[in-house]
């Protein structure tokens, strides 16, 4: 019969990695809080977890945090949505039509390799500091992972399947809808994981540059007024959101397409 301690050790044994990771994170914050007992504390440049928590609570209670997050979420999702709607069909056609692939591949590679963030000042001039500018920055950063992954997904499709559909009288439309789309889905989701990171960069760049609200603007504003605790609260919020998005997509990949994680 399992006694109390052995249940605990069994739990630790089973979730060893999670326990170690959690302990390390807890230790990190504890050390951060404790170090100012030894080191002089200068609230202009550094803060401690207790103050961050207070700042976070303050931001949540005043509703500022949710307001900024909501403002940033709109261009983020609009841009990402546009990237899927445009990127996936373009990528699929590039994969299916060999010559179109040849023609567009170098162009897309150049765009993907170039730091498109560098166009942000221009886009801001063109489209203004509000929603359109930010959405277009997000879109231009997030579209390429979808293009390349949809293209790679189509190229990896078993040609036999395509031939079967055609032999049975399927048209090009059937090939796209019945074979290509389902088989590129895992690739698109893998692309989404990369695209989400780039889309976050897009939102932040747009808001660092020129904005009057949004989470990126909040971070720069708190930095400008040396409100380090609230700045850290915002940074940690962005980190948590980024982790939730990437790990959420990773989880979706694992549950929906377990065969792609055979290791």
């Amino acid at each position: 019969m399992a006694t109390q301690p052995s249940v605990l050790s069994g739990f630790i044994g089973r979730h060893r990695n999670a326990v170690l990771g959690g302990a390390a994170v807890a230790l990190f914050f504890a050390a951060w809080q404790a170090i100012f007992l030894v080191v002089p504390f200068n609230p202009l440049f550094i803060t401690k977890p207790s103050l961050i928590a207070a700042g976070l609570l303050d931001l949540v209670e005043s509703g500022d945090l949710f307001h900024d997050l909501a403002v940033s979420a709109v261009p983020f999702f609009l841009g990402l949505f546009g990237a899927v709607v445009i990127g996936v069909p373009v990528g699929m056609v590039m994969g299916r039509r060999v010559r179109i692939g040849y023609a567009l591949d170098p162009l897309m590679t150049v765009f993907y390799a170039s730091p498109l963030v560098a166009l942000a000042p221009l886009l801001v001039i063109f489209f203004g500091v509000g929603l359109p500018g930010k959405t277009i920055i997000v879109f231009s950063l997030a579209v390429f992972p979808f293009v390349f992954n949809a293209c790679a997904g189509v190229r990896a499709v078993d040609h036999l399947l395509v031939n079967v559909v055609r032999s049975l009288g399927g048209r090009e439309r059937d090939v796209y809808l019945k074979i290509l789309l389902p088989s590129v889905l895992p690739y698109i989701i893998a692309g989404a994981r990369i695209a989400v990171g780039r889309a976050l960069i897009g939102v932040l760049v747009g808001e660092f540059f020129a904005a009057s609200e949004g989470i990126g603007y909040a971070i720069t504003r708190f930095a400008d007024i040396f409100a380090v605790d609230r700045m850290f609260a915002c940074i940690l919020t962005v980190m948590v959101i980024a982790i939730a998005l990437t790990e959420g997509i990773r989880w979706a990949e694992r549950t929906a397409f377990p065969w792609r994680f055979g290791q």
Partner: protein
Amino acid sequence: MAEMQTLDLELGATSGTLPGTASRQRIESIALGTAAIVLLLLIWELAPHFLPIKAGTRLFFTVPSRIFATLWEMFSTGSIWAPLGVSAAAFAIGLALAIAAGLPLGILLGRSKTMNAMLDPFVTAFNATPRLVFLPLLMLWLGIGMWSKIAIVFLGAVFPLLINTHEGVRNADKVLINVVRSFGASEWDVARLVILPNSLPFIVVGVRLAIGRAILGVVVAEFFGAQDGLGVVMVRAASSFNVDIVFAGLIIFAGLSLIMTGLVRLLEERTSRWRPQRAANE
């Protein structure tokens, strides 16, 4: 990271048919690729002649010929070298620091399960978060200038290196490690003889990804907090509606990024070429 790598491999693998067809395909692909780029540039160049453009838009509209003229002028007068040098220094120092920190940490995490479990939350968190979010903080700590730039480059480049090294070390053949151990090798020998050669291709992929991140880091850092550098030149040009210079800067950044990743890709092919052959010899 690993997914990116496999996707790249699949992208590169065009259907291998007869050698004659292959070379014709290659010519066709180069011809079509060039044609598309030329066509795009032509349309862009000729667009103002066919489309009515408002005077307001004309202020920040440009055509490729003017961009290339600006680019030529920047190089011929030599006005480009000073800012480019500043950017290149931040890039090189940040990347070097990232390699110096990322490789040993990656090997450590790959070898020690406990360390990996403890540091994994931090690596995941920092890797998922756009490093840009730390820029205001870094500017507060390090001031506007070289060091906050280097820090951003470092933060961007270190994680692909660390993660890929870790992946390479973890994928090292356990049998080989056991063999070397059985002959009395120390942990250092194991690292030198088995792990390093095995993870080299992964590390090189990590370097390639890191270069892209590092360039991105230089650009954003110079956009928001720097006094000189190519990014600063671009932002100043944008705010005075000098669109040509913005595009010229973008072309320089993109060109450097393509050249460097291309060189690393060559190295990648070189370092992984012997792999299948050695497997066949075994």
